[in-house]
């Protein structure tokens, strides 16, 4: 098949390949090994397919790529409209990159209901990719809600002690928030007669939507609330620690790595895309919430006795950077926000895998249960250190680039935001390195830890790709940013016009 032909269906293929794999998996007999191998093959295949996206991506033009637009339902007017730009491109690849690693990390740790686990994982992958590729608001909502069920089941069936509570809390929080988005989507449909993102955006820009000015603030809030809970932005974050602590490792990896990014992606795409003026006018309080999230998340992370909870709160802090970058409306801020999203996906995903590996050996996440692990597990300790350094933002690793860009964007917007956010970088170094010190350095305090096994083959296969990605992203960020930047500039265009209008007055 020529690349042109492939380009027209590639998004459909990438999105639905995992689902097809999941359906095939249902027919396979319950031989756990076969099921694991099959899931790995499917997810790797999806990853390879998704590499087509960046390879044939035209860096210079800002339109949507690989678009496909067919009618699905004629009334209401719902289209199967998919396409990606610089925002969604890397998030799709991040999803397909993390899923095979999730399969690897679950190789041994999931030994009951193996078939159901991998079916859910593959269905979840399809839903996640669908969120990033949909350009029809209905289709987007469809995938958005579709992520809930497999994720809630992964937490509730395969999780730890308080799994049911965490699963229900996760489900209810995100479900209730997203019905507000549904109401806003319905309003847009009622007043434009279409769900198509591009059409609606153009109609809003040209002022062709009746009653829009009166409703815009509410519509903005409807979308924003759904996204803010997902991110999670302070004070909507309380579901996150519970969900993370109780989720199985693969669930945590996808939750932190990809699911949270659905929220920040939604802000970039829909809040900024459809409601630039409201984004501008609401930015002050959103940025303050983001700053609170950065500092509060870091402080709470610092005092956590539970390793997984610590990583979970660090997500609240890191995602605060993303929101801060987005609502700074600067080129550096938006580029940085996108880059933090990717870097956080990789390094926090890896941190959760590492925590999961420890839990498998010791059945606890309590930091006080460890100490001096560097001597029994040297490879593990080295890998852990590498990822921790990436996460705290050591230059030449991926965390640094994104945070630097976000901070410089925040400084451009208002210096005090930059100063306050910069403390977040220090806090993150403190809580992560302190945790690292307590777990790995010193003498072995608990005798059981002397005999803990080091990383084995498939665990290395899951961790090292993350470490490699963290390094490459830190050394050559331009490979990522040159695709992101055009989308950023397109997203900022209405803000530049707004600014020049204000100057003109």
């Amino acid at each position: 098949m020529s690349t042109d032909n492939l380009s027209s269906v590639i998004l459909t293929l990438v999105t639905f390949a995992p689902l097809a794999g999941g359906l095939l998996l249902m027919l396979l007999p319950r031989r756990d090994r076969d099921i694991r191998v099959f899931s790995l093959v499917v997810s790797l295949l999806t990853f390879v397919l998704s590499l087509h996206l960046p390879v044939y991506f035209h860096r210079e033009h800002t339109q949507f790529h690989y678009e496909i637009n067919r009618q699905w339902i004629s009334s209401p007017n719902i289209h199967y409209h998919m396409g990606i730009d610089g925002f969604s491109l890397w998030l799709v690849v991040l999803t397909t990159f993390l899923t095979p690693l999730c399969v690897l990390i679950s190789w041994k740790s999931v030994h009951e209901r193996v078939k159901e686990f991998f079916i859910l994982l593959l269905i979840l992958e399809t839903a996640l990719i669908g969120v990033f590729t949909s350009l029809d608001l209905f289709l987007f909502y469809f995938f958005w809600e579709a992520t809930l069920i497999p994720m809630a089941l992964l937490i509730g069936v395969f999780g730890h002690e308080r799994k049911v509570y965490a699963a229900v809390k996760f489900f209810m929080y995100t479900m209730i928030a997203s019905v507000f988005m549904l109401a806003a989507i319905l309003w847009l449909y009622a007043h434009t007669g279409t769900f198509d993102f591009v059409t609606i955006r153009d109609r809003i820009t040209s002022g062709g939507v009746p009653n829009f000015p009166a409703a815009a603030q509410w519509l903005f809030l409807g979308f924003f609330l759904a996204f803010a809970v997902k991110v999670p932005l302070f004070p909507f974050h309380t579901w996150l620690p519970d969900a993370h602590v109780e989720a199985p490792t693969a669930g945590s990896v996808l939750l932190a790595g990809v699911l949270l990014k659905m929220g920040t992606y939604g802000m970039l795409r829909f809040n900024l895309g459809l409601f630039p003026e409201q984004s501008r006018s609401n930015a002050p309080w959103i940025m303050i919430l983001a700053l609170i999230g950065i500092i509060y998340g870091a402080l709470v992370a610092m005092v956590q006795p539970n390793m997984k909870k610590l990583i979970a709160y660090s997500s609240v802090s890191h995602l605060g950077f993303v929101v801060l970058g987005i609502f700074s409306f600067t080129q550096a801020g938006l580029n940085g926000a996108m880059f933090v999203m990717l870097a956080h996906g990789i390094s926090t995903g890896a941190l959760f895998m590492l925590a999961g590996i420890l839990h498998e050996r010791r059945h606890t996440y309590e930091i006080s249960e460890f100490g001096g692990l560097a001597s029994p597990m040297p490879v593990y300790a080295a890998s852990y250190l590498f990822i921790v350094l990436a996460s705290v933002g050591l230059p030449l690793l991926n965390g640094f680039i994104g945070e630097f860009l976000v901070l410089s964007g925040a400084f451009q917007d208002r210096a005090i935001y930059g100063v306050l956010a910069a403390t977040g970088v220090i806090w993150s170094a403190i809580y992560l390195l302190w945790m690292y010190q307590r777990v790995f350095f010193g003498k072995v305090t608990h005798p059981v830890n002397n005999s803990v096994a080091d990383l084995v083959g498939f665990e290395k296969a899951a961790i090292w790709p993350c470490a490699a990605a963290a390094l490459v992203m830190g050394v050559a960020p331009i490979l990522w940013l040159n695709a992101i930047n055009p989308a950023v500039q397109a997203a900022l265009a209405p803000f530049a016009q707004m600014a020049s209008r204000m100057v003109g007055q």
Partner: protein
Amino acid sequence: MTGLMAFASSLPQGADYIRILPEIVLSLFGMVVMVLDPLLDEEASQKILGAIALVGTLAGIAATWYMSQFPGLAFWNMVQVDGFSVFFHVLVIAIAAVIILISYEYMAVQKIRAGEYYALILFGVVGMALMTSAIELVLIFIALEISSISSYVLAGLRRNDASSSESSLKYFLLGSFATAFFLYGVALMFGATGSTNIVVIGQRLQEAPATLLVYVAVALMFVGLGFKVAAAPFHIWTPDVYEGAPAPIVGFMSTAPKAAAFAVLLRVVFEINAPGGFWLIWVSAALSMTLGNIGALVQNNVKRLLAYSSIAHAGYLLVAFAAAPVLGVSAAMFYTAAYAAMNVGAFAVVSHFANAGERYVTLQDYEGLGRSSPLLAATFTIFLLSLIGIPMTGGFFAKFYVFSAAVKANLIWLTIIGVLNSGVGAYYYLRIIVVMYMREPQRQAPVTPVPLGLGFALATSFVATLYLGLFPGRVLHYAQDSAQQLVLQTAPSPLPSSPIVSGAPET
């Protein structure tokens, strides 16, 4: 001589009978079941009577198809065959067919004598079908009574169970009150407009401003119909009745008579253009959604839980009634169909699982069902997800159409109440799923293999739920076309506005 000729020409034509053919066919089959019942021994009657009733419903659907070729008025403008009535005919008869399939196993397990059971279902369906095509309030009342009386008896069929008798008696007493309210409303409406024909009333009300009498009449009629659809504040009976009645019958009562009553309400609201109806419906919709969902949150008995959920769903449906005509009517029609598919399916699972004497109906009994019977649990999960309104299921599009019709009509507050409620509602459906998959069983409730009939019923509801969720287009288009027709009838039409109040032929 000429008088005789005129009389002869005023007699019902052949086409008139075709326009009530489904009702005739179903009544005949019901009678056959009644007659055969004493002739057969108990063992044989279980199988044969059920089969006859099933064939009867299939024949009823075929008759509906034939009837749909002859749209128009019949019996001196008392009955109207249009897309709207055909839609509801097919719906209620199909529900009955699936319920009969479910009952096959249930009757054997519960040791209930079959004869009158199947006959009552068929007669009940006759009443419901007639409700959807009648445009004469007195005829509607008679049809309503036919359907109600069968439901009263059916609710009490678990004779050796006190809760079933309680259910039946409660339903009967409150139900008779409600129908009396309806009748009173009809009488007042006749006093105010001089007619009991819906179309004529609609025209009269357009010509003259509504008097107080009309408002009272509309309110009283709404009380009667609100009771039948279990809308708040007339919903108090629902949980008790649903808890005691046989599970397949609850599946039946919560869908078919409701669909028929909603059809009548649609005609009353949109053809009469009932004055004052808007706020009645607004308040009732908001109350039903909220009270239904809140009530369901604390239930531990699955039948009671689904009873409260059916109150909430009546509320969502009523939201469509407050919206603009064509969109609202079609959204309501789609909702009744989707709700029927998922709710009948859910009750099929419940009645299979309940076992002899309906012993296993609490949430705890469902613990570990995901492991002991994965297929049954997965099917139930799909129905529950549809009741929540998760994409890819019929329940999602049903809610979606209703709320988008409401937004289009600028009912922002009602929409917000609705979407919030559907968020809250997710919790208690989710509880069932949680219990099935995430809890270890305390005591293992026995799961018997699914027999063929029930399997077929489950498959039908399952396919219908997914079909409406993935390809809603065809059903929605049909609903929109018939909604269009229905609304057009309100516009000044060539229908003779001669007095047909007494149902006497024009001479």
